[in-house]
């Protein structure tokens, strides 16, 4: 057992040293490469797309395909979790949280819940303007549900609703991509008017996609939590 | 047609000669053996009497086709090898088939008969006959090795596989091969001991212990043919030895003298020997005789 520890530590040490040796050749804090894609993104995003948040522009537009994949990964994670923890037809596990929180907790949760949802919605709607976006917003929404689930022993979320939301959001994303293809010739191509920088309605398809993503992530994470919560045999 | 008649006539004559000489030898064998063992023994012509007796006996049973044919098989070996072996130097009187066969053919035809007879013996259903056959075949695998080694040594030394050529070599040089290839001769003689199946190699027939023996199911005409074949074959073998080792013979008298001298070897060795078990005899043949055979081959190959 000791041997294993020593082995692993020495392996990791070698690994770390080699990694560090190479990384230390980088001039930290400066750009390491002559001409990368980031310059193009930084210029095109505000000028052409009218999107203030360059990261969002990259995530949803330039590398939107990645995001589609990412959404798929989440979707698959829920499906996978459902499949892995599936117990059989008409069998739903018991809740692992068996009792509700104290009154303070429940009341506080009930109070906070709409605010959290609202915050989440705000974050994903303003994804292209401020830091944040669909994922972040979705996570916040899921947090709200988590709070409720933890606070109440009998709080339930409808699987059907979650699934419908999830699917619809995903379909929206994919359909927008296909519409872009119909419109401009390439998948996920921007086909809506871009508006002007820092307007809520700017950035073409970015807000729509981010809203879809927000819904999707929210629904999926909620679903994940809910599945994990109903785990007890 | 004439040729065939000529050959047939030759064959019959050589057969008669071989038969009478061979059967006499066998009679003499009995006599000599008896004398050595301090017995009086039968007269030398006893075997003639036996043969005639057997021929005139009525044969009432046989055990089936193979059994019936067995003696004919062994006769084939005796007669055909006699025909292939030149009897006298320069093929006087008995040219027979000397040019049509060679030593290797001879080696194989000599097996033909015993195998056929073995089949006949097998069909009798007598267990002892099968036991005898297995012993005989095993022993054959033993003595054939030095025998072939000796022959191969001669063949490569004189670059021929023909008996006639070997005889001519001796006539021309005036030296018997038993002197120019002594090891080959030694090996061949040792193999001959096995070939004649006299003691110590007589476990095949096992005349004393196996009261029934391989031959015991045969009687009358079958035994007659077998006995005659045995005598003819004895003569044929001896003639072969004389031909290839002792310079052949110019006339029948010399042939008889030479063959009888040669015949004394297995006979006397046999009288004075106890008996080997099968595996012992097999191993014996693969021992010294084969060693001499090897020496003979080396001598032939190197010099």
């Amino acid at each position: 057992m000791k041997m294993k520890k020593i082995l692993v530590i020495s392996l990791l040490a070698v690994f770390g040293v080699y990694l560090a040796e190479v990384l230390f050749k980088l001039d930290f804090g400066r750009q390491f490469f002559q001409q990368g894609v980031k310059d193009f993104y930084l210029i095109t995003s505000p000028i052409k797309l009218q999107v203030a948040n360059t990261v969002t522009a990259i995530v949803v537009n330039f590398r939107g395909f990645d995001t589609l994949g990412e959404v798929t990964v989440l979707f698959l994670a829920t499906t996978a979790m459902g499949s892995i923890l599936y117990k059989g037809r008409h069998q739903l596990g018991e809740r692992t949280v068996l009792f509700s929180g104290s009154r303070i907790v429940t009341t506080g949760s009930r109070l906070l819940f709409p605010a959290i949802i609202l915050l989440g919605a705000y974050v994903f709607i303003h994804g292209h303007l401020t830091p944040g976006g669909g994922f972040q917003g979705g996570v916040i929404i899921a947090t709200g549900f988590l709070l409720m689930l933890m606070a109440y022993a009998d709080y339930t979320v409808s699987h059907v609703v979650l699934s419908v939301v999830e699917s619809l959001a995903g379909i929206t994303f994919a359909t927008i991509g296909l519409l872009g293809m119909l419109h401009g010739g390439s998948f996920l191509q921007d086909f809506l008017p871009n508006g002007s920088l820092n307007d809520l309605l700017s950035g073409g398809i970015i807000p729509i996609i981010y809203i879809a993503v927000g819904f999707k992530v929210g629904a999926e994470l909620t679903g994940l939590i809910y599945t994990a919560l109903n785990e007890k045999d | 047609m004439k040729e065939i008649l000529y050959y047939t006539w030759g064959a019959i004559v050589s057969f008669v000669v071989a038969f009478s000489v061979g059967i006499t030898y066998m009679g003499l064998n009995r006599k000599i053996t008896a004398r050595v063992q301090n017995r009086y023994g039968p007269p030398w012509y006893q075997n003639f009497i036996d043969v005639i007796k057997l021929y005139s006996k009525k044969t009432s049973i046989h055990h089936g086709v193979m059994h019936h044919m067995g003696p004919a098989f062994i006769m084939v070996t005796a007669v055909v090898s006699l025909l292939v072996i030149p009897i006298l130097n320069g093929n006087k009187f008995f040219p027979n088939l000397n040019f049509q066969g060679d030593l290797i053919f001879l080696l194989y035809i000599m097996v033909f008969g015993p195998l056929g007879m073995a089949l006949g013996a097998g069909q009798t259903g007598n267990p002892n006959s099968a036991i005898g056959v297995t012993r005989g075949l095993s022993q054959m695998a033993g003595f054939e090795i030095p025998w072939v080694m000796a022959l191969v040594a001669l063949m490569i030394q004189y670059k021929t596989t023909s008996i006639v050529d070997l005889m001519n070599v001796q006539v021309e040089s005036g030296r018997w091969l038993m002197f120019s290839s002594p090891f080959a001769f030694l090996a061949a003689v040792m193999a001959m001991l096995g070939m004649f199946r006299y003691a110590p190699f007589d476990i095949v027939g096992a005349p004393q212990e196996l009261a029934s023996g391989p031959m015991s199911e045969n009687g009358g005409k079958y035994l007659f043919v077998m006995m005659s074949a045995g005598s003819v074959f004895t003569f044929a073998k001896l003639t072969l030895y004389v031909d290839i080792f002792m310079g052949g013979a110019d006339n029948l008298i010399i042939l008889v003298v030479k063959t009888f001298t040669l015949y004394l070897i297995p006979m006397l060795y046999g009288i004075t020997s106890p008996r080997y078990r099968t595996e012992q005899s097999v191993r014996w043949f693969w021992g010294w005789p084969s060693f001499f055979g090897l020496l003979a081959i080396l001598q032939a190959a190197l010099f």
Partner: protein
Amino acid sequence: MNFTLFDLKIVEYSFFITAILVIMIGLYGALVKKSLIKVVIGLSIFDSGINLLLISIGYITSGTAPIFSPALVKDMPLTLENIKKLSEGMVDPVPQALVLTAIVIGFGVTAVALSLVIRLYRHHQTLNIDEIKNLKW
């Protein structure tokens, strides 16, 4: 060798050093710890270390967030030159975008891993990784 641990560079490279340390800690957890939960946590930490490294690659000394917020662009026309000038002071947005994706993916994997842990516990009634080896050779 231009990596000198006791140089002043160590401060500059603290991001990298931290990231590598986090990676190593995570790996250590994943490779040595017996509890499946700890293994998953280790993997998660490893993931975070990588993300940290990824983010720090895009860092530019005293750079701003790559957001053309109203405050930033309020009194200049959106010309190419202006944007270029602004963008030079911004950190690289690409690693940030990548990290976003990587985090989500890491999350998905962790979720699957945890659900597998639940299944394993159900099946083996233990979380010790050394006892869970029905399948071997």
